[in-house]
């Protein structure tokens, strides 16, 4: 489609410009506001800021225990990602390479869990956590472990689905030849299939991490001050009387940076993972 008419090119450029503007407008506002002194942010919005300062990026760590929330989010997201990817690899390997009873049932269950509203699980999960503690002394409510197993379960179904698609696209002959040479199925998985599937596994890991990093609903109920994650902690930049908008915007950028960079760096992987797992 290289030979365009002038009108075609103009329409093309206009369309892109409008979509780009819609995307950039909020991003620009956030970035510019994170660089303004508090007085300027409170006043009328100006496209071109008159005073620029990096002070908000220093203050965010003092106004609110941001580092504490950051560490909490990091612990929860990293553990949930590692656990979810590990479980997904084993499950996807079984589904992709073996025919066994209950395989289709598992497939359907995995898919249908995606449609259930989070709010439906939240109520009973909360009650179950509270009662597990009461009856067996297992504390899950308000702990990292409780949040980690919740998040790993959220990303697990989709991760399995994506990995099954990925594994299916890799010829079995690779592992079969290893197994005829005496390798066990698990050795074949670790030495052959996993190294070859690294792009797919990376895509799944990033997906799991983003899911855990951005979750709000369950974090709002299942965390305490001690285990509060960023999703809930950012609220504390607004008090009854005051909203530190410049700091809130600076914190928003700091909090987004890791996931946005990871996602954009891996966008090709994610697209191919989606195509292998979901689109076809």
């Amino acid at each position, binding site marked *: *489609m290289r030979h365009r008419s002038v009108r075609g090119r103009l329409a*093309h450029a206009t369309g*892109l410009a409008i*979509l*780009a503007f*819609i*995307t950039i*407008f*909020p*991003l620009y*506002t956030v970035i510019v506001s994170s660089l303004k002194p508090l007085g300027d942010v409170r*006043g*009328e*919005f100006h496209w071109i800021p008159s005073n620029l300062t990096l002070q908000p990026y220093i203050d965010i760590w003092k106004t609110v225990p941001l580092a504490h929330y950051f560490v909490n989010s990091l612990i929860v997201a990293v553990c949930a990602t590692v656990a979810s990817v590990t*479980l*997904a690899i*084993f*499950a996807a390997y*079984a589904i992709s*390479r*073996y025919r066994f009873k209950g395989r289709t049932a*598992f*497939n359907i*269950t995995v*898919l249908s869990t995606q*449609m259930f*509203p*989070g*709010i*439906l*699980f939240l*109520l*009973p999960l909360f*009650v*179950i956590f509270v009662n597990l503690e009461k009856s067996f002394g297992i504390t899950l409510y308000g702990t990292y472990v409780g949040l980690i*197993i919740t998040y790993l379960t959220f990303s*697990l179904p989709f991760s399995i689905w994506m990995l099954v698609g990925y594994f299916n696209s890799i010829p079995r002959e690779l592992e079969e030849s290893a197994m*005829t040479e*005496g390798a*066990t*199925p*698990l050795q074949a998985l670790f030495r052959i299939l996993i190294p070859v599937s690294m792009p797919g596994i990376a895509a799944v890991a990033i997906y799991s991490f983003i899911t855990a*990093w*951005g979750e*709000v609903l369950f974090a*709002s109920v299942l965390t305490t001050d001690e285990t509060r994650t960023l*999703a809930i902690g*950012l609220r504390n930049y607004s008090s009854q009387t005051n909203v530190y908008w410049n700091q809130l915007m600076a914190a*928003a950028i700091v909090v*987004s940076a890791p*996931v946005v960079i990871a*996602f*954009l760096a891996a*966008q090709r992987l*994610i697209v191919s993972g*989606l*195509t292998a797992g*979901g*689109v*076809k």
Partner: protein
Amino acid sequence: MTAVREPVARPEEARARRRQPLLSRRRLPYVLIAPAILFELLIHVIPLLSGVGISFLGLTQFFIRNWTQAPFAGLGNYRRALDFGGPIGEGLLHSFLITAAFTVIVVALAWGMGMLAAQLVNSEFRGQRWFRTLFLVPYAAPVYVSVIAWSFLLDRDNGALNKLLGDLHLIGDEPPFWLIGTNAFWAIVMTTVWRLWPFAFLMILAGMQSIPKELYEAAEVDGASPWRRWRHITLPLLRPVTGVLMIILFLWTFNEFNTAYVLFGPAPPSSADLLSLHIYVNSFVNLNFGLGSAMSVLLLVFLLLVTVVYIRVFRVGSDRLAA
């Protein structure tokens, strides 16, 4: 495993190793899949069943620490939720209608913008990669961050949106409130579409790239207009992608919680009272878990019905499940 061993010459040894109890050929798939099933049971299946159970109980704040003591309510919670003459049923119906309107508008806009962007990016021009990356930023950022950003933009007096509309002379001297009254509905629509359309873009672009270029070249030789090429090549060949995309967008949007919750907290304006938030308020603010669960179950039944009908009608993903 040592290299000296010759498995071909000694097959009985290889077989003996596979007969190890935990990793026998027959059991291995079950062992591999067991941890995933265990967590699915603990976090998805058991809470789902408990939720159905709770919906038949009068589980209010008095019974949270000893829920076995909660009185059996039978269908009482369902009756109250579906009694559209009473205040609870009326609230639920209102919330359902708001959510339905919200879903239709958001899914249509997200699909339209995603399709337009994919169409524009899926041609060769300089800076193509930059646009693709830029369009993905709103989707990559955490949900709560984009909602917080929009809550800042939507401020009546000092927000950038009213500034923009004022500069374009689209509003008069009296700038509108976005976060209260009926405009709150459009506030959640804008916010949700802004961070959801890149997902549609991503899926549609991936689908478009698998359409053979020759088809378009042939159509161009035959003199088909861009519109006809889109209508008769792109759209039909994207059908499998569109099928999955639409149902995912529908489920996500109908279950949308974050936008309204982060914008308004537990007290949304009535025009932005989405179902998930409505149920959340009834359960965790009004502390009536029985009623909240009954509403969740009703929501689930509705979503299941729509999904089953949709999959039957459009035969979505059937090839995938069979694979």
